[in-house]
């Protein structure tokens, strides 16, 4: 159980910076998710913490110890790969016992700890099976048992749920969170799945092109994204560009419309982007007094909800409404409405004022 500190960590491959000046403090027992698209450098950050890859610059401390130059085998880290990386020639017991046997743990203690770890992931009784005889979800849990059996200081998870189907993934997510809490182990998870990041983590690190875009709690990152990339990557967002109006409670859009927003600290006339989440956007029948007139171009029924693609004078927007009765058909004339406080404003060409 240790804290993790990354100080200005960079990794260059030739002229390309895969990871660019990343600093991160993870508190003891915290669950942090590194979220980013493929090629964002998130896995490189993880492999550097694991010691399978070494930074070109910067330092990494685990539990107060500088491990920057330490090989992976001496870091005492539990690592779970997306591919599970179970040893195909060993049965479940030998796989889970592997980290204990390289640490020269005695036979009796090994047996006891392997059984305990398998019980924790609810796989007791599977000791003699080969990995090839297990389902994906079971293999995943064996990999998890193997990563915690030797009581590592920290747990690193590289897209551990990526290969599971949706239903199973939700189950394993809950189990993973329960396990992490009960062990109290500092955990870093890497994923490109925003739902996974939002549902599992204490904090999310959004990474793009090797650079940190935002570090925040899930709710904070979703509701108050620091820039367009974060807003777009964490779910769907409508972007409206304009300038702060004279009363600083509205934004003047390029087309001349004024839309209401929460009080802004930015000066009048500042160029901003207003971010509006689709589920905060309500569609009302035409003439009911909405903010922007809109025409439904497409209605997508999703069961729990309906997604509307609408055309407004400022361009296309997306609205998501609960999938109850009624609704609008394509071609319907409607108007879009929202609460002023649901608009999140970011100044153009920079990060948020907060």
């Amino acid at each position, binding site marked *: 159980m240790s804290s993790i500190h990354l100080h200005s960590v960079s990794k260059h491959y030739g002229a390309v910076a895969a990871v660019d000046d990343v600093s991160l403090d993870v508190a003891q027992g915290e669950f942090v998710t590194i979220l980013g698209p493929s090629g964002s450098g998130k896995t490189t950050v993880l492999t550097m913490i*694991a*010691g*399978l890859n070494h930074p070109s610059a910067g330092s990494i401390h685990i539990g107060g110890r500088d491990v920057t130059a330490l*090989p*992976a*085998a*001496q*870091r*005492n*880290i*539990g*690592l779970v*790969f997306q*591919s599970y*990386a179970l*040893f*195909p*020639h060993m049965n479940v017991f030998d796989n889970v016992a*592997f*980290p204990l046997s*390289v*640490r020269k743990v005695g036979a009796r203690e090994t047996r006891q700890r392997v059984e305990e770890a398998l019980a924790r992931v609810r796989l007791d009784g599977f000791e003699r099976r*080969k990995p*090839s005889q297990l389902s994906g979800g079971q293999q995943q849990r064996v990999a998890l048992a*193997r*990563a915690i059996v*030797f009581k590592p200081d920290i747990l690193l998870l590289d897209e551990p749920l990526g290969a599971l189907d949706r239903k199973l993934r939700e189950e394993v997510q809950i189990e993973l969170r329960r396990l992490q809490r009960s062990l109290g182990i500092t955990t870093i998870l890497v994923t490109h799945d925003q739902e996974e990041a939002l549902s599992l983590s204490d904090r999310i690190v959004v990474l793009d092109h090797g650079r940190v875009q935002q570090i925040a709690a899930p709710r904070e990152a979703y509701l108050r994204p620091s820039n367009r990339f974060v807003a777009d990557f964490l779910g769907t967002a409508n972007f409206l560009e304009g300038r702060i109006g004279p009363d600083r409670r509205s934004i003047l859009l390029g087309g001349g419309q004024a839309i209401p927003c929460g009080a802004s600290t930015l000066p009048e006339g500042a160029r901003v982007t207003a971010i509006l989440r689709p589920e905060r956007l309500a569609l009302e029948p035409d003439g009911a007094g909405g903010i922007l007139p809109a025409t439904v171009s497409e209605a997508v029924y999703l069961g729990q909800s309906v997604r509307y693609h609408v055309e407004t004078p400022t361009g296309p927007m997306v609205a998501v409404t609960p999938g109850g009765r009624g609704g609008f058909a394509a071609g319907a004339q409607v108007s879009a409405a929202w609460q002023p406080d649901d608009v999140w404003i970011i100044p153009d060409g920079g990060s948020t004022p907060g």
Partner: protein
Amino acid sequence: MASIRRFPAEFGYVLPLLLLMLAVFILPIVLMLARSVTQPEWTIEHYQNLIETSVYLRVLGRTLRIAVITTIACAVLGYPLAYWMRGLSSQRQVLATALVVLPFWISILVRTYAWIVVLGNAGVVNRVLLDLGLVGAPVAFLYNELGVIIGTTNVLLPFLVLPLFAAMVRIDDRLLHAAESLGASRSTVFRRVFFPLSLPALAAGSILVFILTFGFFITPAILGGGRVPMVANALDLLINQFARWETAAALSTVLLVVTLACFAVSRWVGARGATS
């Protein structure tokens, strides 16, 4: 059920080849092997003859010894080579594979005679050794078992290296990384993860080399200079010099049984490798 019903149609595609094989390969072999127990009447006398005549046992023993040593030599030389090739960039892997395969493009006869130029009393190796003063007289590399083993190892090395290399490439690096992250040193990763995963291919390649050496003819004929006859050379003598077809048939049967037994072992090893 479906496979049974489809069987006749698929069978039709291989039927011409099957008939050809039956007529010109399998039937003559069976007839020839049958001579070992049917000539001049039902008898096992030719097998008794094999056992009682020490020369045949010596030939069989020598063949076995050469096959075992060649197999070990190929494994000892081939494993590090395949391991080294696995670590190369993919471009260099193609180049290295081409170099390993290159000898296949040169006639086995040419390669075998080339060894005479290299290893003969006035050959390159002996001249260098003599010039350096490392030996007082030329070392006898040829016309003995050593020469035959050098020759067979050279010819058969690719048969071990290529499948072994292919199997090693398939070993996922992430398994090795996982082992390392779990606390295993480099040597432990090799011993406990990499080597066990490459073992089925090493075993299969070794058995292939063993089987091929067991029936080798040209290399022992040339590099052994007639002084190191193996089973195939003995068969040549029996048939072409002494016209003793029955004894040759009995010896062939022994050769075939050993080969089939090795093949069965390799299938068994392969099946075990596949399930693990």
